[in-house]
């Protein structure tokens, strides 16, 4: 009976989609810190649109990783060990980015802020690119032997698909962030974000569309081909709505595009979770890589309650912080004199 592994394959696809949908825009906002914002006030506007939510968004990545470990330990083990170096880059990028959000405003000098702004922008870029590369490679395959171990050295994972997947997630994140900023800010940032969105949509969606299409040519099924074709609809709708100034709907339709896109990709490779490029006999599938039905059943029960709860309270967070942020809301930087002199520790008592 393959019911539970199938459910968990879908659950993991949902977790990745949730991650790309939510952290997509905060990764994009991070990159836009250097590409879009023109001064410190604008950068702070950008930061504060994602301030209360980025950490919660990032947990989707941990949950996707943890769920893969629990439900498909062999998939988790092979994918993560084969992609050792790219995942190291993702980890370093996420570390710098997280710390930068919190520490950027803690010292009131331009050089301090500028350093952390780069950490946010580059951290966001490399995290998005690395996650995209890893997701693309799990759909197109890695040189794995019978045990599921990578052969051919530290860079044997590299292929054009890694680059394509990397740009796919970077492009989508940037576009999603522009839609998000148009929705969450006011004034000049809002208008420019909308302009950029309309102008750049075709370019930024190109790599993700190419990846979805490439997968269809490799493994497509009628249903997943249909999803790809259908995805054109919401992308076009998002473009038209953004032009019209309907920012909320543009954001949601872009989300619908993402859902159809990931569904077409994950659906096409199913039931393979990680193909081996050496021999299809070594492919990891939902049956040979999964945990026992007991474990999957336990996880299903918990997830059936847990995941809707997470979605509910995260949605509430977005509602609490629903007001648009604009340059006028940004308070002055707060510098303070130390109440206690530094020499307390250095002079003799």
């Amino acid at each position: 009976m393959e019911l539970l592994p199938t459910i968990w394959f879908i659950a993991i696809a949902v977790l990745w989609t949730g991650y790309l949908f939510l952290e997509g825009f905060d990764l994009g906002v991070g990159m836009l810190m250097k590409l879009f914002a023109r001064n410190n006030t604008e950068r702070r506007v950008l930061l504060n649109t994602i301030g209360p939510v980025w950490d919660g968004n990032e947990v989707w990545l941990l949950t996707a990783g943890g769920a893969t470990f629990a439900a498909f330990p062999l998939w988790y083990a092979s994918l993560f060990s084969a992609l050792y170096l790219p995942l190291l880059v993702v980890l370093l990028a996420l570390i710098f980015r997280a710390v930068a959000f919190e520490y950027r405003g803690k010292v009131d000098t331009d050089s301090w802020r500028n350093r952390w702004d780069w950490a946010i922008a580059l951290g966001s870029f490399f995290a998005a690119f690395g996650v995209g590369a890893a997701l693309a490679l799990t759909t197109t395959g890695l040189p794995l032997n019978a045990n599921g171990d990578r052969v051919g050295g530290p860079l044997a994972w590299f292929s054009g698909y890694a680059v394509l997947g990397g740009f796919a997630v970077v492009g989508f994140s940037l576009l999603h962030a522009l839609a998000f900023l148009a929705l969450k800010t006011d004034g000049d940032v809002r208008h420019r974000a909308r302009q950029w969105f309309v102008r750049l949509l075709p370019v930024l969606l190109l790599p993700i569309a190419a990846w979805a299409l490439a997968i269809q040519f490799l493994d497509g099924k009628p249903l997943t081909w249909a999803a790809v074709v259908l995805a054109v609809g919401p992308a076009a709708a998002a473009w038209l709505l953004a032009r019209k100034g309907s920012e909320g709907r543009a954001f949601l339709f872009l989300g619908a595009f993402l859902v159809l896109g990931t569904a077409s990709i994950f659906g096409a490779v199913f039931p393979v979770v990680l193909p081996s490029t050496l021999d299809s006999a070594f492919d990891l599938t939902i049956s040979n890589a999964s945990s026992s039905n007991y474990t999957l059943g336990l996880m299903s029960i918990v997830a059936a309650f847990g995941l809707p709860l997470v979605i509910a309270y995260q949605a509430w967070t977005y509602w609490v912080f629903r007001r648009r942020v604009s340059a006028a809301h940004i308070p002055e930087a707060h510098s303070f004199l130390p109440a206690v002199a530094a020499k307390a520790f250095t002079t003799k008592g």
Partner: protein
Amino acid sequence: MDALEIARWQFGITTVYHFMMVPLTIGLGLVVAVIQTAWYRTGKPEYLRMTKFWGKLFLINFIMGVATGIVQEFQFGMAWSEYSRFVGDVFGAPLALEALLAFFVESTFLGLWIFGWKQLKPAIHLVCLWVAVIGSALSAYFIIVANSWMQHPVGVEMVNGRPVMTDAWAVFTNNTALVAVPHTLFGALAVAGGFLLGIAWYHLWRRRHDGVDTVGADGRVVPGEDSRIPGRDRTDYSVWIRSLRIGAVVAMISFAGTAVTGDLQGKLMFQQQPMKMAAAEAACHDGTGFSVLSVGNVGSKNCDDVVAVIEVPGILSFLAKGDFTTEVKGVNSLLPEYKAKYGTNLPDNPVYGDRAGQEIQYVPVMEVTYWGFRMMIGFGGLAALAALVALWITRKGTVPESRWLMRLAVFGILAPFGANAAGWIFTEMGRQPFVVAPNPDPSGIDQVFMFTAAAVSPGVSAGELIASLVALTAVYAVLLVVEVKLLVKYIRGGVVSAMPELAHAPADENEDRTPGPGGTGEAKPADDVLAFAY
């Protein structure tokens, strides 16, 4: 060094580092939640200031725990793929549940707390912090469940050479975890206690040093004000003396808690991993005495080189069994038992690489277990004793003018950190050579175990591991410097560093009169959007 050793160093370094940030997060989070609750109930301004100040330091530290935590989850798959394959059916579940049920809660509600001072009603805002704090404790529970399964595997059956979960209840109520969770949480609180105590002492000392607070003829403090520095008023005095007392009490209670739970844990460990406890004693022969000091080459292969110089008879038996007479097995009698049960040499299996066929070293590195055990207890006890002394010294309301005493209090912050690190290093190194230690309970699953030598990723090269070891260690070192620098900056700034409003309205006593909950009327419209801004 080969891949295995590099991977072990990496796991050790990243875990110990992560576990510097995490106890402070857990402990300080709980303390801040209690203080904010006090503010909510009484409306006293010092509680608001304490919430803001300690909350600010909490956040500076929290983010480091988050950033370094992701590495932990990824590392199992990246560097320990064989381990992940072997244990995935049972070990993955607590990790996934940690993310789903605990970490989501913690991050989301902490975001609400940080940014929601004005958007949320005071009661809801407070509840958000409590939910985040409970989330972090729950997170600790799930992680320790996973770790405890490595110490004491339960609830599984071997199917095709891999343990498969058959009894989730057994896994999630593993007795090893049930004592390790409170032990760890008390350890976290001890860190928070020392943190409050040291920093509050520093500020009280500074107030005395600058002549703000003086001491009357009866030796009691006379709190004063310094109008030149924002926020240095009489309320500020209350902030620090209350923080100091809370810190000292928390430090003492949590030491008592770690002692009681640690004793329970020790008694379990004598049954579950007797070799770990023999190595903690560097004890070769069976006996009843607890070594206070052993000399000789503790790391020697021949453990008879170690001589106990000072030994208290009966104490070891008490630690192990609760009486003073039971003989506790030493290394020499345990070794043959381990060899008979789990083999003398590693099997000739390719997963062991060059180590296949080598003799198995069942005795953990004794310098580490012996001194780790003693450092844990020593640092913990020292911190609690210091807290007691601190309470006595400050009984008349302030600290002495001695600069050295102040320095001691500040450096004392490190002691509970040391105790935590030593405890974890002891228990994880003491588990060697197993990554999953065998469960010797009569009802246990004797054959569910894994040697660390078999756990590393076979496809990952030593070069990749060196790259990550160097990169992570370097980045962690730089970030530690940055974190400590920022903490020092905000600590030195005092409350005003976390409450700019104190500086912007120096003569304004509004803050003191505002009834804590519900005092949002005077906020500017802009503040409704961003009560707090990055």
